[in-house]
């Protein structure tokens, strides 16, 4: 019995590869498994080659995993285009469509998989559904048959999808599925038992979503009532879900004419007293940065989600990278500290988005959430989130007494000044991007400027004590350390497990608070550390360097940073650790 299985499939446009992946993960979720699904596309806008990779498990999984257990090629040209996403090892079982006319010993892949089978996928599709468009359904039948999973969910999915297309089409697709199941039962691909273990007895029906959708839901949960943005891959789904849902909660979503207008409208919403959000990706972030400074200066709460993609410039819009950390931390003129949070998985996108609103509102500051294409677009089956444990913070309003002689930017003990909004009697004030006195009056006085910068900076100091925004994992006394963030963190956890299982003591620190740097948390962590790696998906080692601006790190701590759109694998990190 396996309790973990990784399947990858690729095909041409029109083969329905992605929809097969979606059907499969939905069916597995209904079976109460844990699963993660990632999809990859060629550069075409629509209809080009595509692939999916799915990892299913009886336990929570932290990453999409590495080598495939089952590789499915509907044709070899397209499969090879996804070579890096769909790695094959000596343990992989490879199946492909016999219509390719290639003999199993001649398939065009490097290395030697465990077994290779040529299977008449297209033939079965045409025989049953009278169309080669049902190839994906045949493949679902094969998977279901071999591994004993997902049958009822897939059949229901087929019924939902094809009922409206008429009885004949529906029957054809049902037949295609059962043809696959039949073939699988008659032609086992393994001599051993490859069945997937049953879900745990106490497994519950979980949630199935991706990082963008759950981000939008988190915003509504946190009380967001204004979204202004502009479409950009891979962030648009945040705007799209909000534009469907936010009205129900008396909110507004506006698709503006560009990203500057998007963030400007959100700052307007915040000035008007509403929790406001904008979401974008690399090029949009670059455009928005002047307004981030305005929000810092005018002390207006604002949440910005950056779904990172390959950069600079247009870069690789559809692929993930963690290369916008410097930008998130530093893109500002003037002396600016702006909190930056990074979620580590789909569930954490919820937590970090709510946290971002809380920090933004409480401290009256812009907050950046650094998501990435991997988190945004991967579908994950996640356990229910106990939303009752979340506290929702709101901006501090002036009291009646304070309104009698209201001073908007009053110097206070915690450097946070109660904030009014238009419509609030006696709270009238001038918000400004220009430096101002406590009342909001413009000033060019150097002394006041220095005091105000200190106020805006110091009010954020308590955030640096938030050790709850860090995960420490592994052997607490280990001399070897891993540090990783964002979507790489799950892989680093697996690497940490591999090392400890192999008797190499390793500990892992995952900062979800990227900035300001929590010096004391790092100093504590580094106490036992002699050497280690900072693992991140960028070329420059951006987190590594930002940590070192504020903390003296052990000499043996090195960056393990890698550009390119393919995520790290746990074994790869483990190997690198061993070589330290």
């Amino acid at each position, binding site marked *: 019995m396996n309790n973990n299985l990784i399947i990858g499939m690729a095909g041409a446009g029109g083969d329905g590869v992605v929809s097969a992946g979606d059907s499969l993960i*939905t069916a597995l979720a*209904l079976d109460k498994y844990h699963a993660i699904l990632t999809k990859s596309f060629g550069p075409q806008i629509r209809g080009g080659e595509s692939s999916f990779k799915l990892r299913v498990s009886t336990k929570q999984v932290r990453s999409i995993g590495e080598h495939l257990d089952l590789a499915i090629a509907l044709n070899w040209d397209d499969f090879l285009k996804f070579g890096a996403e769909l790695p094959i090892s000596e343990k992989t079982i490879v199946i492909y469509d016999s219509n390719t006319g290639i003999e199993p010993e001649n398939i065009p892949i490097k290395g030697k998989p465990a077994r290779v089978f040529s299977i008449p996928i297209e033939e079965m599709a045409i025989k049953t559904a009278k169309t080669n468009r049902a190839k994906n359904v045949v493949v679902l039948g094969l998977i279901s048959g071999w591994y004993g999973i997902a049958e*009822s*969910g897939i059949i*229901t999915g087929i019924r*939902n999808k094809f009922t409206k297309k008429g009885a004949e089409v529906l029957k054809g697709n049902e037949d295609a599925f059962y043809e696959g199941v039949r073939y699988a039962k008659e032609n086992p691909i393994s001599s051993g038992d490859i069945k997937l273990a049953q879900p745990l007895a106490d497994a519950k*029906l*979980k*949630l*199935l*979503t991706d990082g963008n*959708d*759950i981000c939008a839901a988190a915003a*509504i*949960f946190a009380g967001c*009532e*204004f979204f*202004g943005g502009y479409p950009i891959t891979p962030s648009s789904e945040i705007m799209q879900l909000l534009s469907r849902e936010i*009205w*129900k*909660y008396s*909110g*507004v979503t506006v698709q*503006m*004419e*560009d990203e*500057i*207008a998007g963030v*400007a*409208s*959100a*700052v*307007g*919403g*915040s*000035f*008007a*007293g*509403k929790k*406001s959000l904008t979401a974008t990706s690399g090029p949009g972030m670059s455009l928005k940065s002047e*307004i981030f400074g*305005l929000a810092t200066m*005018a002390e207006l709460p604002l949440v910005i989600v950056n779904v990172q993609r390959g950069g600079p410039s247009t870069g690789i819009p559809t692929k993930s990278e963690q290369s916008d950390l410097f930008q998130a931390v530093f893109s500002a003129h003037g002396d600016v500290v702006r909190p930056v949070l990074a979620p580590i998985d789909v569930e954490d996108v919820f937590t970090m988005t709510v946290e971002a609103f809380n920090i933004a509102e409480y401290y009256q500051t812009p907050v950046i959430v650094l998501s990435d294409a991997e988190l945004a677009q991967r579908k994950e089956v996640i356990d*229910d989130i106990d*939303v*009752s444990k979340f506290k929702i913070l709101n901006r501090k309003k002036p009291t009646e007494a304070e309104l009698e002689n209201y001073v908007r930017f009053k110097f206070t003990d915690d450097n946070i000044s109660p904030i009014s*909004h*238009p*419509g*609030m*009697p006696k709270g*009238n*004030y*001038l*918000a*400004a*991007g*220009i430096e101002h006195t406590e009342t909001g*009056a*413009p000033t060019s006085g150097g002394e006041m400027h220095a005091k105000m910068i200190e106020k805006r900076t110091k009010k954020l100091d308590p955030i640096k004590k938030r050790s709850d925004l860090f995960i420490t994992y592994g052997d607490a006394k280990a001399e070897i350390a891993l540090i990783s963030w964002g979507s790489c963190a799950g892989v680093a956890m697996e690497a940490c497990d591999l090392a400890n299982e192999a008797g190499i003591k390793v500990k892992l620190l995952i900062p979800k608070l990227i900035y300001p740097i929590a010096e004391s948390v790092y100093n504590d962590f580094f106490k036992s550390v002699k050497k280690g790696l900072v693992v991140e998906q960028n070329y420059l080692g951006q987190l590594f360097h930002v940590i070192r601006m504020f903390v003296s790190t052990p000499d043996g701590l090195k960056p393990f940073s890698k550009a390119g759109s393919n995520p790290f694998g746990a074994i790869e990190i483990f190997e690198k650790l061993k070589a330290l």
Partner: protein
Amino acid sequence: MSTATTEFVAKDFKSDLKPIWCPGCGDFGVLTALYRALAEIGKAPHDLAFISGIGCSSRIPGYSTAYGFNAVHGRALPISLGVKTSNPDLTVIVASGDGDGFSIGGGHVPHIIRKNPDITFLVMDNFIYGLTKGQVSPTSGKGLKTVSTPYGSMEERVNPLLYTLSYGAKFVAQGTPADMKGLAKILEEAIRFPGFAFVNIQSPCVTYGEERDMIKGQKEYMKNLEEMNHDTSNKAKAIEIALEYGDSIHTGILYRDPNPGPSYTDLIKNLQEESKSKAVAKDKILEMFRPRLK
């Protein structure tokens, strides 16, 4: 609003801040006309939001007792959209300059016109960049010599009246502090208009402007639309008048859509009203991700 019935006088809208403008700047007159218009409208200062960009003209919000937001150069319009859609009960006024509104912020103008929120857009058009000390502006006449065009500008001017009319603005007017009473009246009408309203204000820059554009000079070629019996519902005629921008100063309302229909803010309110009943409790929001066997 409960406060709408209270009586206000012009000075209720005047703040304690002393304007930093050069003596004689046209913006003083605009400010006075604004105070008067706001007193006529009678809404409490706390229900007004004044949004501006950067420029001499963009200082206006600070000189009013209303809520103000003196933001960054060129972005007052999208900020105002966020303010108005977040709280449609507010009266939202944008103060801008020819550079702020039609150069750096020019790209926002068509889009806010398309949306038609109930916002009033005032541009203090002085044909020059005042704050940055006299560079050419998008409304400067061709040939104008400035510090950035020492041999004379080689570009045609933007025509703010034609620009806004042709993008479909439902209220377009022009005024000047050379006619204070007229200007106050125009501002009042613009603020009352239930949709996006644009007022181009020929507010002279006494420091960097041309003699002909000063209050005294303006009087030579001002034309009062009311006295001309201009029909404000005639868009074709309004466009014809707009074409004379730069040659004459027509004061008054060029165009007012007689059937303006619902504004963007009205539509938003309607959608929110209709959608309310479909909301699930926020603590159940994640149920939308529960896989279901339909």
